[in-house]
């Protein structure tokens, strides 16, 4: 099958039931998308499917066919969220952060000036065991230019 990842058509001929997460990681060599729980409870594997945040651990490859898949590798180095993440030294262990950024990017695409409540609502599906939540929130607001 063909998968459109970060605006590029990629070939995948494995099990169509394989979760998109493992297609990305094991077959397309895109390891920025992380495995955390496997049951869509932690958000470490968050990618965009047609612009919406989705948990790639719970989306079979076949289902992602024909959709525009965007991963952390498709986020440009100058993206305001990436810049803000570094400015605020958000990461600790860092393992959840690509999922956090993908979730935040989907939020800002939908709501460019989110309120605290919007941020809580959008981000509470993404776990950070290091507890960087407040810095994540500060970085999102910084990137969005809201106080």
């Amino acid at each position, binding site marked *: 099958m063909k998968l459109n990842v970060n605006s590029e058509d990629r070939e995948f001929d*494995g*099990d169509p039931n*394989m*979760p998109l997460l*493992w297609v990305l*990681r*094991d*077959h397309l*060599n895109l*390891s*920025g*998308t*992380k*495995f*955390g*729980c*496997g*049951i869509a*409870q*932690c958000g*470490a594997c968050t990618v965009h499917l047609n612009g919406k945040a989705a948990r790639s651990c719970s989306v079979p490859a076949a289902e992602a066919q024909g959709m525009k898949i965007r*991963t*952390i*590798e498709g*986020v440009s*180095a100058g993206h305001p969220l*990436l810049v803000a*993440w*570094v400015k605020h*030294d*958000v*990461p*600790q*262990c*860092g*393992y*959840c*952060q*690509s999922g956090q*950024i993908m979730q935040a990017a989907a939020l800002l695409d939908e709501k460019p000036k989110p309120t605290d409540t919007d*941020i*809580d*609502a959008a*981000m*509470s*599906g*993404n*776990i*950070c*065991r*290091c*507890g*960087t*939540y*407040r*810095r*994540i*929130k500060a970085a999102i607001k910084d990137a969005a230019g809201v106080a």
Partner: protein
Amino acid sequence: MSERKFEEEAQRPKVFTRRRLVLGGSLLGGALVVGYAATNFGAIAAGALSIGARAADPGAFGPFIKIDETGWVTVVNRYQEMGQGSHAGLAAIVAEELDADWEMVRFETAPANAAVYRDATLGIQGTGASQAIAGSWDQLRQAGAAARAMFVQAFARKWVLPVESIGVRNGVVYHSASQRSETFADLLADAAKITPPEHPKLKDPKDYRLIGTEIVRRKDSQSKSSGTELYTQDVRLPNMLVAMVAHPPHFGGKVGRADMAAARKVPGVVDVFEIASGVAVVAQDTWSACLGRNALKVEWDDAKAETRSSDALRALYREIAKGKTDVTGSAFQTKGKVDDAFDGELFEASFDFPYLAHAPMEPMNCVASVDGRRVKLTFAAQVQTVDQINCALAAITLPGMVEIETLPAGGSFGRRGTLTSDYIVECVNIARHVGGGRPVKLVWTREDDMSSGYYRPMAHHMVSIKCGEGGLPLAWRHNIVSQAIVPFGANELPTHGVKNSPYLSVASVVDGKIFTPKLGVPPGLWRSVGNSQSAMVMEHTVDQLARRAKRDPAEYRRAIFTKVGDVRKLAVLDLVCKKAGWGSPLDAGWARGLAVHECFGTVVAQVAEVSVLGENLRVRRVVCAVDCGIAIAPNQIAAQIEGGVCFGLGAALYGRITLDNGTPQETNFDAYRVLRMDEAPAVEVHIVPSKKTPTGIGEPGVPPIAPAVANALLSLTGRPTSSLPFVI
């Protein structure tokens, strides 16, 4: 004995692991580690451990500093980067003495070599007890200052100038009078030829330009934000196989009969075989390994398995604490004459703590290859020396022939510091079976990780206190029930935070005992170790004592700290009260709770603002005061305290592993609830100025939050808390 030297305590072998091979490793590992740390033959034993290792070239500036011809300064970090960011502080210590340009300083992780990279306090190469900064302060200042002196000397010789007239700033060596200057890069070849001075002059702290400033920031934010950081899970090597293991559902269970036929037929599965810890499936990729494992049919042998449930264990622990079982207590602190000290009216309280999983975001994993006697490991090693010994035993080789490339960990919280090296040995066993030096990546699912044990152990504390004048403790009896956290020595770790606490110091009679039951569930080191339980017991008890005496909790503590001369606790208490507005009015329905606790040499006070609306407990703000000696990296100190509060708060609110018939019931984040963004309080961190040797920051932020919340609840509802988690 220092509370940090947990490796020293290896005398009494303990049997509690469910993996026989692993157990053998831990015994010898413990004994060896003890042998050299306790007898002070560190260098000799570490040398012996390194037999078979490839020779390391320390370079002109020693094993901790590398400088290249482009002027980049690389600081070699012997500690694991698991999120705590100690690399920033370590790099700053070197850069400060070296007068390097911070923008041209980076770090790399040291190879496993105890002879060169062991931590003096831990006695091994490993990361724990918040030791990185404390254990490196003198050594890295010396190394940085020596390297600086070499550049100065090289410049002086080249231009025939007196050494005293030469300065260094931001990686540039200069002579003001002649307006000559050269960079480290320019001088590198000459400087490398200079013999490093044995006793280089260290900076006066008043001249620090880097240490204690906001310039000191972690160096990995870019790679960790952009998804380019390489974790164990991301390792891809030529010809690599991926392995998953079907583990026994019960601790102490083993494989009875395994039908592997269906698993072998799964496309992508390369081999299926039994190992000591279960049935291994190796495959071409992760998904095939997963499907292969699902296709296994295993009958488990539970003859020796742990089959008790949490409720039964809790009841048993209470009986043990009362001395009603055959588990006898051993004294951890005694003072004065017990006689009639506990006659009359007593304050009595007891506390139950559940098992807790670490649940780092990256489940345990490891990459290993075994080629004859050479073992190569690529993973987030936390206790390299211990892992080398355990893996050498598994692969029948020498510890020095176990090469480890340490990667950053996607969290650990102590799980990767497990002293049996459980999952690492499992990976080595699989790689050994595969053979030929073919790399194998062992992948644990979240369920594997969360049901694997090495939990913060279940515990029960029981206190009986007689108070005297002003309501201050006069006699303190304290019984602790907890499994031994490390498999050797006296069961000391659960007493941390109780033993020698100021509240015991102020009493004239102390009767402290620890009871050590044996269970089939392997306990482990969990961020802040015994402190996360003892802080709850001590600080919540003290608040109740203050209220009984009709005294303000802060004022009551101040009286005790003053009486015993604990000036550091006094300082953090005063600072936290000032910053939190202690005593000032709050919105209706909100209350403040206070806790002060010392953990691994760092003192932290926290004031939490808490409300209860129906069933809904909210913590909106936590004000913290910290004394960690000289503050090297204030931004990272704040980050660790912010994170520690969230980690400790999530555990206190929701954390528990429940055993049903011996089997963990919470195996993923759907059932094992953790703190999420909408529940994360605003955390303010204030640092007490200090000229003392720096102490650690990775763990001390965790312990005070549970009692701070409990004390606020006490203030709101009048009801004390006697078990965690708060929310059931």
